[in-house]
């Protein structure tokens, strides 16, 4: 998988253990998703405006998903496996993963967006970020 997706340059070591970092600020932002029982590495958002009709971001609010905004363009819910999150330089533990959606762009390429919610007081103080990822069965 590492070779197929060219993940070598994303490999890092922390505490003697190797980890693959999927960062939104990367020049080619990618993210792993579980879809139909298969782990795929897909494009993360539309920050580089490869698509003319998808939002130019990597995030979507949970409220937007619930309002059905994404349904008309064929989005499906996915899970983003993660052991750690990094927001504004702060690394925090993630036990299961993050909620996401997967949507095709005009060329049929799968693009993932991370679902976010307004930050809890704890998360906002910790990261100084007004929004936080929607974690799977976890509240921080």
């Amino acid at each position, binding site marked *: 998988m590492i070779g197929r997706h060219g993940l070598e340059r994303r490999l890092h070591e*922390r*505490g003697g*253990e190797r980890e693959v970092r999927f960062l939104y600020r990367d020049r080619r932002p990618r993210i792993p998703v579980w879809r139909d029982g298969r782990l795929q590495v897909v494009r993360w958002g539309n920050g580089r405006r490869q698509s003319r009709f998808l939002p130019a971001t990597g995030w979507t609010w949970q409220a937007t998903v619930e309002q059905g905004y994404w349904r008309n363009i064929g989005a499906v819910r996915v899970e983003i496996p993660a052991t750690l999150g990094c927001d504004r330089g*702060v690394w*925090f*533990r993630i036990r299961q993963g993050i909620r996401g959606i997967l949507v095709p762009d005009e060329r049929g390429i799968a693009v993932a967006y991370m679902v976010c919610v307004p930050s809890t007081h*704890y998360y906002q*103080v*910790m990261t100084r970020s007004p929004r936080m990822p929607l974690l799977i069965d976890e*509240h921080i």
Partner: protein
Amino acid sequence: MSKEGRETAIGHLDADCFYVSAERVRDAFLNDKPVGVLGNQGACVIAKSYEMKGLGVKTGEPIWEAMVKCPEGIYIKRDFRWYEVLSRMMLDLMRDASRRVEYYSIDEFFFRAEVGRGETFEGLARSLRDRIQECVGVPVTVGIARSRTLAKLISDASKPHGARAVLDAAGEERLLADLPVTEITGIAGRRAERLSAWGITTCLHLARADRALVRRLLTASGEALWWEINGDPVQAINCRRPAHKTLSRGGSLGEATDDPTLLYAWLVRNVERLIEELRYHRVAAGRLKLVVLYKTGHSAVGQRTLALPSDRFDVLLDAARPCLRQAWARGATATHMHLIAEDLAPPGQAALAYFDPPDRRLRAEAVARVKERINGKVGRFAVRSAATLYLPAIYADAANAYDICDVRDKMCF
């Protein structure tokens, strides 16, 4: 030497970076990585792993400073319920190993160390350390000496994962010579300055100092430390916590506020938490004191004496309201609130009928019983005052439902 012909000494067992170790017990992913446990506001590092400590991160440091020193650090939210589970497991193991154990704090225990013929204190320290590691999964350090203060100094100096016994005068002298006097619990800041003026900067200086001088400089409690570091145990191992003189609940408000409705909600929350504590200890409050700290750095106090000691919600809230009025500064942003119960007395020891109409009392007690029963069964704060509905985020976060002060029967905070 004990009556049974066994040699006795005093031991101190201290968990190594306990909160981080506790997290690692249930999450092996964190092993060998730099980990910091944050307080409930997410602002301060309240515990750190040795990997993080090695990069200069200190306990109490704000996260934005810690991040600069340790950019690879992983931050975890505290979970005192889990830490207490492991703490009680360690306490049980200690009680199996010793006849006298003091639950000093969530991660520290003093105990009477006993060895029979052919056994050594060093071996006992090692076996306790290994047993806790094996049964609980938490690394600890054990020190054994002739007194509590020496035992604690030895374990502090032997961290992490150490096991050491020092019972001879020469060994004690070597230990004390290397340690600054501020390593002794109870000597810091002004006390250290007072000693420094007399050239007393190391533990050995203090041990060799004139006892009368130490008493003059540090009062009787300082003299007790002098005896202790000279190997005379004058501080007992307390198997039970002495009765509280006061009980308090409160702390940071999370988000600072100048809204009186929110301050009132915090007051009611603190009254409810204080009542739980009063009932657990079977005491009633004779006097309430409310301290509110403001962002400007000043604090204000409100206090009220009750007609008769009580642990009832309606009575205590009636007394707490005017305290808040007294302590409230209009327009000022409050950051912390502490509610303190003083003049504690056993409940129901006054001529109730004179002050408290029986029908009102019986109704309030019935409500309190129902509330206690439901919360005991369903979960803490399942039934609570509607005034606290102004704090939805506080109650939505399970971490706020249990604090370090809720870990009961330990000797110190």
